[in-house]
């Protein structure tokens, strides 16, 4: 039992991080149909930015806030300089543009920051909390709590605010949204900025656990993308469930089967789900596009 609990805690922590990145994918995809492969790099900017600002003497909250703002700026620039000029290009082209942006961000980070691994101190200490024979780190609670808070906030924003509805409307039909007076360009910029903020926040809370380096975004992008696909691209709830599922499958596979094949098991599950539910677990509920 304690082993099961231990694995579940690990899985939920890792899964919550994947879920946050999956959420970022969802938001941008919803607004613009772009699958943003630079999503993981926002996580890196959040983590590395905070590390270096703290090293410069700033307290954690201030450093995190500035890093967050920097990530948002990068997100907006990504939209303005790379996505917007290619408006109307095919989704594949746009995806390639984001991959290029990701490589570019990594390259610049190597120069601005450095090539070493870095860590942040845990927010509430390193003493593990014993629960039913297993242990959980306080930082894991931070990660899960942040994920939960962001999911709720994002849900409220999309479903219960006018701006949120505008995002959904833009996603459903850009032309129609324009015709009813929605500033589409602004909505798209908002989606990129928000998505960058979510990614960066994930980076800040996850760095004490995962450590960070200029190139750590690639891994996060892949796992977050898998989470979003498993849940059904475009569905925020799906992204969260998908992220948690992948995290849990990975840890249970490593704990009960073989650590060598844990990634293989996770990706096999995704393949199976997509084989039978091509739109993902929650895909049927997503907006129909014509």
């Amino acid at each position, binding site marked *: 039992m304690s082993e099961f609990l231990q694995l579940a805690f690990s899985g939920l922590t*890792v899964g919550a991080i994947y879920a946050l990145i999956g959420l970022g994918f969802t938001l941008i995809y919803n607004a613009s149909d772009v699958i943003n492969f630079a999503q993981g790099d926002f996580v890196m900017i959040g983590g590395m930015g905070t590390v270096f600002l703290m090293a410069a003497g700033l307290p954690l909250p201030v450093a995190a806030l500035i890093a967050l703002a920097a990530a948002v700026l990068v997100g907006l620039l990504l939209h303005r300089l790379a996505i917007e000029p290619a408006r109307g290009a095919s989704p594949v082209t746009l995806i390639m543009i984001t991959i290029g942006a990701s490589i570019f961000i990594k390259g610049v980070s190597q120069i601005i920051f450095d090539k070493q*691994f*870095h860590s942040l101190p845990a927010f509430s200490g390193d003493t*593990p909390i014993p629960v039913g024979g297993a242990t959980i*780190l306080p930082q894991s609670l931070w990660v899960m709590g942040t994920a939960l808070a962001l999911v709720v906030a994002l849900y409220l924003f999309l479903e219960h605010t006018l701006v949120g509805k505008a995002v959904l409307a833009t996603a459903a039909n850009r032309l129609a949204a324009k015709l009813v007076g929605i500033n589409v360009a602004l909505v798209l910029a908002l989606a990129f900025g928000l998505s960058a903020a979510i990614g960066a926040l994930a980076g800040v809370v996850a760095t004490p656990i995962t450590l960070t380096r200029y190139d750590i975004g690639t*891994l996060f992008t892949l796992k977050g993308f898998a989470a979003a696909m498993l849940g059904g691209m475009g569905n925020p709830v799906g992204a969260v469930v998908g992220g948690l599922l992948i995290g849990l499958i990975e840890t249970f596979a490593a704990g009960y089967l073989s650590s060598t094949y844990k990634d293989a098991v996770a990706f096999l599950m995704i393949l199976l789900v997509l084989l039978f539910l091509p739109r993902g677990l929650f895909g049927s509920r997503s907006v129909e596009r014509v």
Partner: protein
Amino acid sequence: MDTPARLRPMLRAAAIMLATAVAGPALTGTALAADPIRIGSVVSATGPAAFLGDPEAKTLKLYVDELNKKGGLLGRPVELVLYDDGGDANKARTFATRLVEDDKVVAMVGGTSTGATMAMIPVFEEAGIPFVSLAGGIEIIEPVRAFVFKTPHTDKTACQKIFEDMKARGITKIGLISGTDGFGKSMRNQCLKVIGQYGITVVADESYGATDSDMTPQLNKIKNTAGVEAVLNPGFGQGPAIVTRNYAQLGIKLPLYQSHGVASKSFIELAGPAAEGVRLPAPAILIGDKLAAVDPQKPVVAEYKTSYEKATGQPVSTFGGYGYDGIQLVARAIASAKSADPKKIRDALEATKGYVGVTGIYTFTPTDHLGLGTDSFRMLEIRGGDWALEAPAR
């Protein structure tokens, strides 16, 4: 045809340059006394392996300058021909060919990664030019190649050092958690090859991906395996730091052994308080100031540390030390061969006996082109966020 006046000096300069270029080879041929001895090098001063290659490049430059200040070798100046492969083995091979064919080097010190070294070996073997590699892989010197030597320890040496320590402490059953990256895989294989000689058995054998961020499932499995008396983590990069943190999180009280792959201050920083009590083998340079006064390596390490830190303003690293030993070995070989003929340098290199270097004390033989024993490693324990020298447990 009239040339504008202002162009004339330029034309004259061009003509002189052309004449020198043509006459150049002939001139150097006659002025043999001033002809420099060329030592080649290809390192990864930039790119993903820059943290290894950059200190190597700086060390090589520093000590070639030093040699020249002392009057060079055999009364001739020494010239270092240094190329940066940017971490690309293909480029390394191209530069190796250039060193042999264009630069006519008499010896080569370089090869930051095992991949780059393996790519360059055929070039130097064929040309019959001695090549001292700075990379870790055991395949560089096993099987022994006539012209290839190397200065860094191998994974095998590290495994032997760790198992010696375990044996002395009466540990017979261990859990293994290895990274699946090149370093982790290679070290795991080397460890499994020699472990039998120490009467130790592996009762739990786990692995993790190089970019994984959570190793608690694997460690939990080891924790629940009956009979495990210690855990060994062959790995490189951030993986071992996360393993160490997770180890503490799960409250595992068994001794944790890390490899020489994490022998740097940044490991202690990344692993934080969880690193307390972790044991690992490391070269003397890491703890230069803590070495016993009678230790033969103490003065060498101290001299290198002072010179390097004064010249570059950066702290010394193990990797720069490999470069130091490489260039010193070649310089000694040229001096003792009393010749800059590559074949004679090779023979002198192989005859090296008891050279006290930064990394260890080297004695090459025709069957051993690494020349380091387990005594080149010191067993360290992390105490109070710093390295502490373990008294040999015997």
